[in-house]
């Protein structure tokens, strides 16, 4: 089966509508994407690096795409209340893949740009034409598909020497009266010596329908830029998501990415980092708490093209019920890229005998003056520790929760936003207690927001 075909056909028959509702900078890239897609297929299970995910199967259902950009009557920004205490952010929304700015957000520093592509095309066309598609290659079929069908996206541009005092928050909300696919794109450019933090929250507000999210995130970190990117997914078992992160780092830049999967259906995250300048540092973290029939698959590829850089990777999973976890990590050190320090670690707790892990930490090294290591472990909670706690009056359930919480704390500790860190600790605790279902904590009213109502 070739799931790609239906989307190519959809594009061909709705080409005019798609292009009419999208900026020229996006339309300009479609021809090339189409050409690539005609020659390729979406990866299937069993192909190299797809031991766990079947992308073709994820895209196979007949998802609709909102090509005519139907406006939503409910104001997501009004209904949504993100209750991370003590955190004030510049907040923006994607309702499915339609952009909404929050009315409440304080104003940005004058030279910082956070705009949907549709506006950026008018105000900053040079930024879009310069950076859009410059990092994510069309050889990745999901990126090509995103380019082919995408109609909007968010541009974040932090100019030289600007240090943002608070995080930029992007809230993605999936909800519709039928199975649809959201095609989102994010382009982040952090200028020389600039610093920024970004928090992306993915929510699905509809338990009834199947959804598919295709996201492409392009990050450009110029010399000495600092950028933290946190991605929290709290969707439903019926939501499939593929997110392709492509990162380009210049000399001295520092990029931290933390992908947290609390509830989901089937998720495949790709993190492809190209380190092109000396003295750069890359930190890639991720965690997933999976139950039911959920699936998480993280793929990371860090290319150290020049010497004197550091990278650190840590991914931790807790897998319950029939869930499946996959991790593929690859560190590539190019010839002549000496003095690289690269570490990679994947740890998994398998809580039932029906859960599965597939892990592949890989090193590919072409020069000698490096320090690289990787490790992976698959195991269980320490029975002695549980017994120790039980002997002191802590119930078995509680003891398990405490241990799992402690297991995840390594990843949570990497968060460099105090309020978010505290919040995550609570969310994870609740998730382990089985109290957390989709987006309960983000808002008490957001579940009521239904497209077209009110």
């Amino acid at each position, binding site marked *: 089966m070739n799931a790609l075909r239906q989307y190519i056909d959809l594009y061909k028959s709705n080409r005019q509508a798609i292009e009419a509702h999208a900026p020229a900078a996006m339309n300009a890239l479609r021809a090339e994407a189409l050409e690539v897609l005609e020659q390729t297929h979406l990866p299937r299970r069993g192909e190299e690096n797809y031991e766990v995910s079947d992308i073709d199967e994820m895209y196979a259902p007949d998802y609709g795409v909102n090509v005519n950009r139907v406006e939503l009557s409910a104001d997501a920004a009004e209904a949504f209340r993100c209750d991370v205490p003590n955190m004030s952010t510049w907040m923006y929304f994607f309702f499915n893949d339609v952009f909404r700015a929050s009315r409440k957000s304080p104003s940005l520093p004058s030279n910082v740009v956070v705009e949907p592509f549709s506006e950026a095309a008018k105000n900053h066309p040079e930024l879009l034409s310069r950076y859009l598609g410059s990092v994510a290659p069309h050889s990745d079929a999901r990126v090509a598909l995103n380019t082919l069908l995408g109609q909007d996206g968010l541009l974040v541009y932090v100019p030289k020497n600007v240090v943002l005092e608070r995080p930029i928050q992007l809230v993605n909300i999936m909800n519709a009266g039928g199975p649809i696919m959201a095609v989102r794109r994010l382009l982040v450019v952090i200028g020389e010596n600039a610093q920024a933090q970004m928090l992306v929250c993915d929510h699905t507000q509809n338990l009834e329908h199947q959804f598919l999210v295709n996201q492409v995130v392009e990050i450009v970190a110029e010399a000495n830029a600092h950028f933290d990117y946190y991605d929290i997914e709290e969707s439903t078992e019926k939501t499939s998501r593929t997110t392709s992160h492509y990162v380009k780092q210049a000399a001295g830049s520092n990029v931290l990415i933390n992908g947290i999967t609390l509830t989901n259906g089937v998720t495949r995250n790709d993190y492809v980092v190209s380190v092109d300048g000396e003295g750069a540092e890359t930190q890639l973290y991720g965690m997933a708490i999976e139950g039911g029939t959920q699936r998480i698959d993280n793929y990371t590829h860090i290319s150290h093209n020049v010497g004197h850089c550091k990278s650190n990777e840590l991914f931790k999973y807790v897998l319950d019920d029939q869930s499946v976890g996959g991790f593929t990590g690859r560190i590539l050190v190019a010839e002549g890229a000496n003095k690289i320090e690269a570490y990679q670690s994947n740890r998994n707790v398998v809580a039932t005998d*029906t859960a599965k892990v*597939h892990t592949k930490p890989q090193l590919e090294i072409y*020069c000698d003056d490096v320090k690289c290591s990787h490790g992976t472990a698959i195991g269980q909670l320490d029975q002695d520790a549980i017994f120790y706690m039980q002997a002191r009056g802590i119930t078995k359930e509680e003891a398990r929760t405490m241990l799992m919480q402690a297991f995840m704390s390594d990843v949570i500790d990497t968060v460099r936003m105090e309020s978010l860190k505290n919040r995550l600790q609570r969310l994870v605790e609740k998730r382990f207690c089985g109290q957390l279902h989709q987006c309960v904590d983000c808002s008490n009213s957001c579940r009521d927001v239904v497209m077209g109502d009110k």
Partner: protein
Amino acid sequence: MENENKIRQTNSDIINEAAQSEYKYGFVTDVETHIIPKGLNEDVVRYISGYRNEPEWLLEFRLKAFRHWQTLKMPRWAHLNIPEIDYQDISYFAAPKTKSDGEAKEIDPEIKKTFDKLGIPLEEQMRLSGMAVDAVMDSSGVKTMYRERLAEMGIIFCSFSDAVKDYPDLVKKYLGKVVPYTDNFFAALNSAVFSDGSFVYIPKGVRCPMELSTYFRINASGTGQFERTLIVADDESYVSYLEGCTAPMRDENQLHAAIVEIIVEDRAEVKYSTVQNWYPGDKDGNGGIYNFVTKRGLCRGDYSKLSWTQVETGSAITWKYPSCVLKGDNSVGEFYSVALTNNYQQADTGTKMIHLGKNTRSTIVSKGISAGHSQNSYRGQVKVVASATNCRNYTQCDSLLLGSTCGAHTFPYIDCQNDSSVVEHEATTSKINEEQIFYCNQRGISTEDAVGLIVNGYAKEVMAKLPMEFAVEAQKLLSVSLEGSIG
């Protein structure tokens, strides 16, 4: 104590020998050889089978394998740059000519000289060192030692062609059971054209009193070598098996595609050691052996144990994954490997540990050493199926880099499907610590010798698993293979 002295002695030998030749096994023996014309088709398969007077079922097996092979494509997934191989440009059968059938038992003096040069004396010395040897030159079994003495204990140790003649039922029962001809491209090719090899059967409760050993030697040019080894260890038996390989220096590439199948029954133990020293090509990457080998053991019985130890220093390209299928409950698989690549050698080697039985354990220790312009990859799979509860795996794979133009890569595949098993993988990649070299320099040890010392120390964990005679040879090999790669 005596052993210690011997090792000390050996260490000083290493330093002396390090200054000598590059590849000391690179001679050609002038023996009249029977070679069939190049090319591969059903007639060739029939010819090989006919030449050996093989029974109908074996010919059928070969033909099925050949027909399957024709449907396959050469695998390209390994991290290797394999030039296009023209399978019609290889002669699939070469055997030292025997004068006449009556004299076949008498070994050709030229061949004997060859094995003497290799340090494998087929007669007297072997009796002293207490080792039974089966020597295979080009495609034919040359001589098997001690066959009669072992037979008294019920142990069968003979060339594969003799086994087909003398023990057809055993061969028929086990052939292709662990590595079926459908397994992969090279397994299919081997199954179609395999010529000779060794067959070992250890009966119930017998502990083989000596090391069994096979030496493989490619001699004729323009030929490939396709031998097949089948080892069956019946209940509560034990055998230690050694394998060594060399080939002459030639500027052409020669293909070696072998199969090793091992079956280990209840409480039996097999230890399989390899020192692979096929000609690696010259320092510019010309010539050398393509070593594409399928080795797999099935721990069929409960409490069975299979241990692979390999020292890989030769071959232009190595594609080899000795594996254990741990089917019996409480069975144990081990894999200890040192793979050294220099100049333009490429190696993609590792293991597979497939845990099917409960409480099965496996250990993988892999030490890669890359120098020159070589590429050295570890590729391994650890799979624990849902029903294999309480399994344990520990994997350690370290890479040592000598020189800025070589590559060291690690590709582990880990798959765990239950909640009572523990799987661990640790890997590091680094170069030789400069402080260690400096420390040696201060004490009057040259940099080259210091590297030799450090490399041998690094590989010691694996070397210690080799039988004594082999450990000495392997240690020498490491030093010689590294020669000229420093500075």
